[in-house]
């Protein structure tokens, strides 16, 4: 499994239209364990329309974040590191500024400003050409002379299918790597560019492991596979019908709004429980959706329905894990438990499928070299 | 499930301006060669058997050949700035093309006027 993350469960996400977490949901259905589904990274600088990503390098090369009064508000939240504080801290800072009324408002919501004008035209053209071209194309502004409006949005899933260092999941013969998997090399907070390194390293090692496993095992009985395929075909055929009480778009929009409002950057127990109840309702509604078009060639309505069902599973897993973790750790921040629980050793949240419901377990985190320290920036 | 094969139409070169310019450039090359051959043929005929009709055709060919070579030069001079060793934006390519055409016209004028001073 290497199907990427599931950012499309959120309405505001930098992810592509195809990031619907199919691999994670399929593996869960098949019996593999999921790990740390509540660890979701929010990127602080995305454009307000469409949430296109403005790379962290803009801040890394010396950009400033300004609120509507023109002040560098990161002074209040991270006086030493300022804009270079970790992503979750900056996202929370921007969210606080928005709630405090210090953010400007536009047709696509509230935003703060990213100022890279002082870097000079030469640096921007050489080191940040993508930022400039995105701003010119989608906002019609030139970052050499104007401020860039930014707002936080969902970006990365640290959690996923639980694997070990070789890519083995808890289901024998199933391997996973990349954003789909959770070896847990990122823990609760991923550092910038590490997902690319993860793909290179674990793509290589897991690929080799999978090939070795496949070469050393006998073929499965093909009749068994055929019967399973027949069942899947029947499941899909049962989705074709002339009328449907809901459309895929309605349920998907409701799910995205629920996740945005109830499982956003700052979570609390009441909102999470309400969100979970809504998601469960939406799952029942999604079961009733039927497709009019019977085509089996590039039927995008059928694929959107299947993807919607997978996304609802992942939304449920995220909310369930988030409720269970009653502390704030890394990118998982709860306003009702704002501090990290240092009394007990840190634990992973494991989710398994049990009799059609999600069963939660805990597993100890293996700490080798870097022990959790105080987060002072 | 059959796929729909998209075959190019016979009039594909009318679809866009750049296709049209390319087509004119290529067809003109063929026409130029043909006209040059006919020009040589009629020059030979007129040297040995000058008659009014062949003289008329000969004169006509001179004009056609001139037009064809002008079109040939201009269309290829337009194509030249596209392969500079450095990156050029579209407007600069246009300016380079026009500059080359102007240089060519100036050089042609100077050569045609002053080269004949040395004609015995």
């Amino acid at each position, binding site marked *: 499994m290497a199907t990427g993350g599931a950012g499309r469960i959120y309405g505001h996400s930098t992810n*592509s*239209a*195809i990031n619907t977490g199919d691999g994670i949901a399929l593996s869960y259905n098949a019996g593999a364990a999921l790990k740390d589904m509540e660890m979701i990274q929010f990127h602080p600088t995305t454009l307000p*329309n*469409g949430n*296109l*990503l403005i790379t962290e390098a803009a801040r890394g090369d010396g950009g400033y974040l300004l609120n509507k009064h023109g002040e560098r508000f990161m002074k209040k939240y991270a006086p030493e590191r300022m804009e270079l504080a970790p992503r979750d801290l900056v996202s929370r800072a921007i969210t606080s500024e928005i709630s405090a009324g210090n953010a400007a408002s536009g047709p696509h919501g509230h935003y703060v400003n990213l100022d890279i004008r002082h870097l000079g035209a030469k640096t921007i053209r050489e080191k940040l050409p993508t930022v400039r071209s*995105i701003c010119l*194309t*989608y906002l019609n502004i030139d970052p050499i002379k104007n401020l860039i409006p930014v707002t936080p949005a969902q970006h990365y899933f640290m959690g996923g299918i639980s694997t070990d260092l070789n890519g083995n999941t808890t289901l024998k013969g199933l391997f996973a790597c990349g954003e789909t998997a959770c070896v847990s090399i990122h823990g609760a907070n991923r550092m910038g560019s590490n997902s690319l390194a993860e793909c290179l390293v674990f793509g290589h090692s897991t690929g080799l492991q999978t090939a070795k496993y496949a070469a050393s095992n006998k073929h499965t009985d093909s009749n068994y596979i055929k019967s399973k395929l027949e069942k899947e075909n029947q499941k899909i055929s049962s989705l074709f019908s002339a009328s449907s009480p809901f*459309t895929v*778009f309605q349920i998907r929009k409701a799910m995205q709004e629920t996740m945005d409002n109830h499982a956003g950057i700052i979570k609390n127990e009441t909102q999470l429980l309400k969100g979970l109840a809504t998601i469960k309702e939406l799952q029942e509604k999604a079961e009733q959706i039927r497709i*009019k*078009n019977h*085509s089996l*060639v*590039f*039927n*995008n*309505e059928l694929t959107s329905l299947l993807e919607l069902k997978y996304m609802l599973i992942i939304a449920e897993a995220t909310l369930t894990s988030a409720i269970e973790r009653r502390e704030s750790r890394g990118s998982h921040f709860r306003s009702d438990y704002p501090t990290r629980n240092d009394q007990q050793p840190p634990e992973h949240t494991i989710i398994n499928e049990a009799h059609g419901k999600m069963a939660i377990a805990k597993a100890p985190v293996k700490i080798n070299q870097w022990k959790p320290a105080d987060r002072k920036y | *499930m*059959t*796929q*729909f*094969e*998209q075959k*190019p139409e016979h009039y*594909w*070169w009318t*679809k*866009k301006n*750049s*296709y049209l310019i*390319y087509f004119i450039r*290529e067809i003109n090359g063929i026409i130029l060669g043909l006209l040059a051959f006919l020009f040589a043929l009629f020059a030979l005929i007129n040297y040995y058997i000058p008659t009014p009709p062949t003289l008329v055709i000969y004169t006509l060919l001179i004009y056609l050949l001139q037009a064809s070579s002008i079109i040939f030069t201009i269309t290829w001079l337009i*194509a030249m700035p*596209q*392969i*500079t*060793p450095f*990156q050029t934006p579209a407007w600069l390519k246009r300016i380079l093309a026009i500059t080359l055409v102007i240089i060519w016209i100036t050089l042609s004028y100077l050569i045609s006027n002053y080269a004949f001073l040395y004609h015995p």
Partner: protein
Amino acid sequence: MEIKLKIRRYNPETGQLIWEEASVPFHQDLTVMEALDYLNDHKQKQISFRHSCRMGICGSCGAVVNNEHVLMCQTFCRDLKQPIVIEPIKNFPVIKDLVVDIKNGMEKFRTALPYTKIQSNHTSEKSGYKHLLQSPTQRKKIEQSSQCIKCMLCYSACPIFAFNQNFIGPAAAALADRYNKDNRDHLKESRFREITKDEGIYKCSFIGECSKVCPKSVDPSGTLQKLKIAGVFKSPRKSIPQKNK
């Protein structure tokens, strides 16, 4: 305010080719991709088309919009004349609606030998990994040709590829150039031998449309002409060339 769209649709099961007309509510930032998404979400038109990143970096959403080859996620409806005519990209067989099968184009990348082998006698303790290093100046040489996102718009715009599906094509030639100019590469000889075969770079007629439509300004047209010159010096033929089937 509403804007009008005209989309060419193909149904693979009935073999029908039709023009579908629809209208979409307009706002300043509406892109063609968003308009098609709107038709699928709110009007159940079920138009099949590929799209992914929404910001012009994945190369999935290529189409011919008002007779121009563009990426739909970067084309704004406010700049287009109505009715906006949307067709799939040319020179590839259509699977359904706006989805085409680009396998034929992607296969051409193999001819460009898009890889390089690490020579084993270099990995000694003394030399370390010096042969794998690349300075910023060296990176600048391959900067432009490495921007290619394999969107296949250049293949769609190339009339040579339209009539001859064996032509190596602009993107594959630009990829070959990217590897030739890479300081860590040493497969130049074999690569030139591959691309100067019969259906290779010498079939290019310098039409220049590929560079015009490229969304990333890779300039395959200029690159091809320079490759043609370099190819003359780099690969001497000792026998009659074999036809590349």
